[in-house]
Each structure stands twice: as structure tokens, then as C-alpha cells.
């Protein structure tokens, strides 16, 4: 059971890739990229977790008691910001592509051949 978070993380990575590869709509595709990103949250979260330890907020608990790893949580925070910003850029690009080509289906966009 203790390996479950890793499995979930790997699964999210793979299923997100599957979504990107088979996508028929660029907005859908962008959201699938977001699922790949959430894979890294779960992995980092699992690495930082300690069984039976509280959150690293030393208000109610005495300073110095063992707590879960705050470094990893800070990394996830950065990761979340990166996700939302990259997603905004991807969506903006998708909207512009639709404006130009009148479609969001990657199967119908063929400007880049060869």
C-alpha cells in the first residue's frame, strides 16, 4: 500500500500522455498536459510525507518536533504556479490557432508538413 502514491503518479503521467496523443481538440489537449503535471505533484507529495507526522506549521506544535518535509511542499507550490501559467499560455495559443484556422482539431491542422 505504501507504493500506491508512486503508482498513481506513474499512472497520471501515462494517462495524460495518452490523452495528449489521442486528443481531437486542442483545449482538451492542454488540459491533458495539466494531468501530466499533476503526476509530479503526487510524486513529490509522497516523497515529502512522513507517516504520523504533522504539517510543518509550528504554531500548535512545539518547534523542533518532527514534521513532514517542507522543502518538497515548497517545490510543489512552485510547480503549481508553473502549471497555471503554462496552461494560460497554451490556452491562449489554442484560441489563436482556432481564430486563424477555424478548427481546434489537430487532425485537421496540416500547415507544418514535411
Amino acid at each position: 500500500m505504501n507504493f500506491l502514491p508512486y503508482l498513481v503518479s506513474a499512472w497520471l503521467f501515462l494517462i495524460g500522455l495518452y490523452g495528449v496523443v489521442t486528443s481531437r481538440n486542442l483545449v482538451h489537449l492542454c488540459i491533458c498536459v495539466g494531468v501530466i503535471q499533476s503526476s509530479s505533484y503526487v510524486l513529490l507529495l509522497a516523497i515529502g510525507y512522513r507517516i504520523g507526522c504533522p504539517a510543518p506549521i509550528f504554531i500548535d506544535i512545539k518547534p523542533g518536533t518532527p514534521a513532514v518535509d517542507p522543502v518538497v511542499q515548497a517545490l510543489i507550490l512552485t510547480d503549481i504556479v508553473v502549471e497555471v501559467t503554462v496552461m494560460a499560455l497554451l490556452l491562449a495559443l489554442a484560441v489563436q490557432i482556432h481564430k486563424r484556422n477555424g478548427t481546434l482539431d489537430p487532425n485537421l491542422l496540416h500547415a507544418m508538413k514535411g
Partner: protein
Amino acid sequence: MTRAARKILFLISALLLACVFWLGYSQMQPAGFVSGEYGDRVNQLVVPQRHITDAVTAVNFDIRGFDTLGEEFILFTSVMGVVLLMRWRKEPLRGDHEDKAEDRRVPPPSDAVRVTSVLLVPATVLFGVYMVTHGQLTPGGGFQGGVILATAPLLLYLAGTFGQFHQVAPLRMVAFAEAVGAATYIFIGGACLALGGTFLQNLLPLGQVGSLTSGGIVPLIDLGVGLEVSGGIVLALLAFLEELVEEKEE
């Protein structure tokens, strides 16, 4: 490639990748038992050395503050990018929507929605400010508070008072505030350098543990980040929103 060929290629590749995950992850320490010696050291020192009770904030804004500087500028850069991508017409960024938005011909939202939204605005702002200012004490901080603050103008939009929205937050002011928030981070870092430390070295008095002013430069950075994030998110959402508003005007 045809759809089927692509799918087959992907399934084979995904199988390989799954093997990598399986073989690699199976040698990890089980979750909950990973020895995080780095995190332990941080947990030991944040209260005595930095007077900060939220260790995550301490890592974000002090110990690994330079990462967060990069992160803020990722947000800043992306917002510039989104605005540039979305407003691609020749006329410059317009800030004066008031006159057009006032006489929209869409049916106004019901009074119930209006009243609720308007009532929610002060609560949201209050909550956002609380979160920004308590970053070093409790969960939350400049980023979370900033996003909450950014939802306040959206509530105004929901209330059908987009004109008021522009009065509350004129675009040029939002853009200015965002950039100033971003520059604040560098400014604080540079001030530390000018005072004889290294970049972003926490040289201010650390204050009483548990008070709003504890943590030296951390609350200041938090304020800057809050300003930058709220401004940035509003700008990004507006970039998506702008043409929709025009449509309603037609």
C-alpha cells in the same frame, strides 16, 4: 500517421515507459518513510533562526527565495505573453471600457446574484489580504492570497457591473501594480546586497515569533508577491475576457 498507427506506436512506447516507471519506482523508499534529511534540518531551524512558524513559507521566501523569484517571473512573463497573444490587433491596450460597458444590451443579472456577488466582494478582499499578510504564520501566503484577491473583480463582473470593475481596477493600474509587485522582489533582494549581505539575505530584524512583522524580509516579499499575483491573474483573465465583453456590446 493515421490515428490507428499513432495509437499503436504510443501504446508500445507507453509500455516501455511504464517499465521505466516500474523498475525505477520499485526501488524507492516506501511513501511515508523517505528520509528527508534536508527537510528535517529546515524544520529544526525555522523558528529559532528565522522566527517563522510556517516552514513552507520559510523555504519559499527565505531559504530557497531565489527559486520563488524565478517563479514570480515565470508568472509575470506568462502574463505578458498571454496579453500579447490575445490582444493582437493594432490598437493599443485600451483601458476605457466604461462608456461601452454601461449600455450593454444584455439582460442584467437578477438582483439576487447581484446582491450576493457585491456582498461577497469585501469578504473576498478581506480574506485575500488576511492570507497575504499571514503568510509566515499560517498556511497561505502571497500567492494564495493574490489569487483570492484576483477573484474579487470577477465577482464584480458576475454582478454585471463591468464598468465598475474598470473603475475599481483600471487596467493600466493593474498592469502597473503587477510590474511593481514583480520588481519589489528584486528590489528587496538588491537592498539586502546593498546593506552588505548577499542577494536576498534576510537582514531585517526578525521580530516576535507569531507576530505579523516576524520573519524579517519575508512579510515584505509576501506583500510584493501578493500584489504581483493578483494583478497578473486579473490581467490574464481579462485578456481572455475582453472580446467576450465586446460581443455582448454588439
